[in-house]
C-alpha cells in the first residue's frame, strides 16, 4: 500500500520545491509538456503526489528523469508553480537516496575529474591547433591550482562522495 510520508513537505521545501503546494491540478503543464507526448512523465501527477506526501510515487521510476527542463510548463502554469524547481528538488532527494543513473554518474564523475562535463581528446586537440587555439583552453582543466580549488568545493559540498 502507498503510504504518505508526513515530513515530505519539509524535505521538499528544504530542497527548493515548496511551490508544488500551490498546484490546483488544472493539468495545463501536462498538456503543454513536450516530454509527456513521448514518455510517462505527467507533471501534474508529480505535483499532486508531492502535495500528498507520497514520496515514493513522486521520486520512483523513470518519469522524474524524463524532463528536459524546457520550462514550457513554468511559462503556462496559472498558479506560478516553479515546476522545474520542484522536479529538480525531487531529483536531488532521489539522488540523496542513492537513485543515480549510471550514465548520469559518469557525467558527474567527469566534473570531478576534469572540472568539465565533457573531456578533451587527441582529435579535438589537433583541431584546436588547426584553429590557432591552444590545445587546452585556459580553464580549470589546464591549471592544477585552480583544479584543487574546484576539488575543494566538490568535497565541501559532498559531491565527490555522492557520485562516487
Amino acid at each position, binding site marked *: 500500500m502507498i503510504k504518505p510520508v508526513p515530513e515530505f513537505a519539509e524535505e521538499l521545501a528544504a530542497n527548493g520545491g515548496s511551490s508544488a503546494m500551490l498546484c490546483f491540478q488544472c493539468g495545463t503543464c501536462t498538456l503543454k509538456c513536450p516530454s509527456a507526448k513521448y514518455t510517462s512523465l505527467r507533471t501534474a501527477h508529480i505535483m499532486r503526489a508531492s502535495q500528498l506526501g507520497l514520496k515514493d510515487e513522486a521520486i520512483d521510476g523513470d518519469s522524474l528523469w524524463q524532463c528536459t527542463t524546457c520550462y514550457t510548463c513554468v511559462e503556462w502554469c496559472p498558479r506560478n508553480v516553479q515546476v522545474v524547481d520542484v522536479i529538480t528538488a525531487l531529483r536531488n532527494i532521489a539522488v540523496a537516496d542513492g537513485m543515480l*543513473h549510471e550514465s548520469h554518474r559518469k557525467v558527474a564523475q567527469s566534473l570531478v575529474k576534469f572540472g568539465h562535463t565533457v573531456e578533451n581528446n587527441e582529435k579535438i586537440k589537433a*583541431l584546436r591547433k588547426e584553429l590557432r587555439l591552444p590545445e587546452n583552453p585556459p580553464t580549470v582543466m589546464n591549471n592544477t591550482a585552480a583544479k584543487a580549488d574546484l576539488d575543494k*568545493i566538490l568535497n565541501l559540498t559532498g559531491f565527490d562522495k555522492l557520485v562516487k
Partner: protein
Amino acid sequence: MAKYAFFLGCITPFRYPGIERSTREVFKTLGVELVDLEDASCCPAPGVIKSFNKATWLAVAARNLALAEKKGLDIVTICNGCYGSLFDAAHELHKDPKILDDVNKILSEIGLKYSGKTKVRHFAEVLYKEVGVEKIKKAVKKPTGYKTAVFYGCHFLKPSKLKQLDDPEDPKILDELVEAAGAESMSRKGKAMCCGAGGGLRSQFGETAMKFTKANLERMKADGAEMIVDVCPFCHLQFDASQKELGFDLPVLHLSQLFGIAMGMDAEDLGLNAHITPVKL
C-alpha cells in the same frame, strides 16, 4: 570598447572548437573585447549537476561568477545551458543574502568572495542589444542567403519572467540577427520547441531525446528549411549528431559560425570539419 569575460563552458571547447574560434573573430570584428575567464569550470550543467545536488551546483557556479567579478567584468556565454545555469545562480545569490552568505563560507576556503555584482549575458542578446542589427549588417561582406530555421532552444528565453528578453512563444531576436547576416529566416511554427537533449535526457534516455529532435526536423523540413542556426552547442550537438540516424541532412550552424561566414572568415577557421552532418555551403 565594450569588454566581457568570455565563458567557454564544456561542449564548445571540447566538441565544437570552431564555435569558440568564430565567436572570438566575430566579436573582434564588431569591436567587442572578449577576455578569457581563466580557471573557469563547467557552469555547472543545469540538467545534470543541478539535478544531482543543488548546493554543489550553486557553489561551483558562484566560483565562476566570483572569478568574473574579480576581473570587474560581466560574463558572456555562447551556450543556453551555461547561460541558464549562471543566470539562475546569479539570481538566487542576489535575491537571498542568507544563500549568498552560505556560498561565501565555501568560497572563503579557496580565497574567493562573491558580492553579487556579475551580470550574465548570452552572446546573441549582447549582439542584439549592445551591438545592434544595423552595425552587424555593415560588417557583413558575404550575405549567406539560405532559407534558415532559427532554433532558440529553451534556456535563452525561458523562464521569460526572469530572462525578459523576448516573447518565448513567438520570438524575434534570432530571426532579426540571422537576417542581418543575409540569410532568410523562415516564419515557422514550433520555434519554441525543445531539442530534447536537456535535463540529462541525451545521456540517459537518448531515444526519447531523439523523438524531440525528429519532431523538430520534420517540421523544419516540411517548411522547406535549408539550414539550422542555433545559439547553443548542446542543441547544436543534438541536431548535428542525430540527423544521420534520423535520415535528415540539414547543415547545422551556431549563430557565431553563420556570422563568421557572413563576415568573411575563412571556411577552415570555422571548424566545420568537426561537424557530423556535413556542412556544404
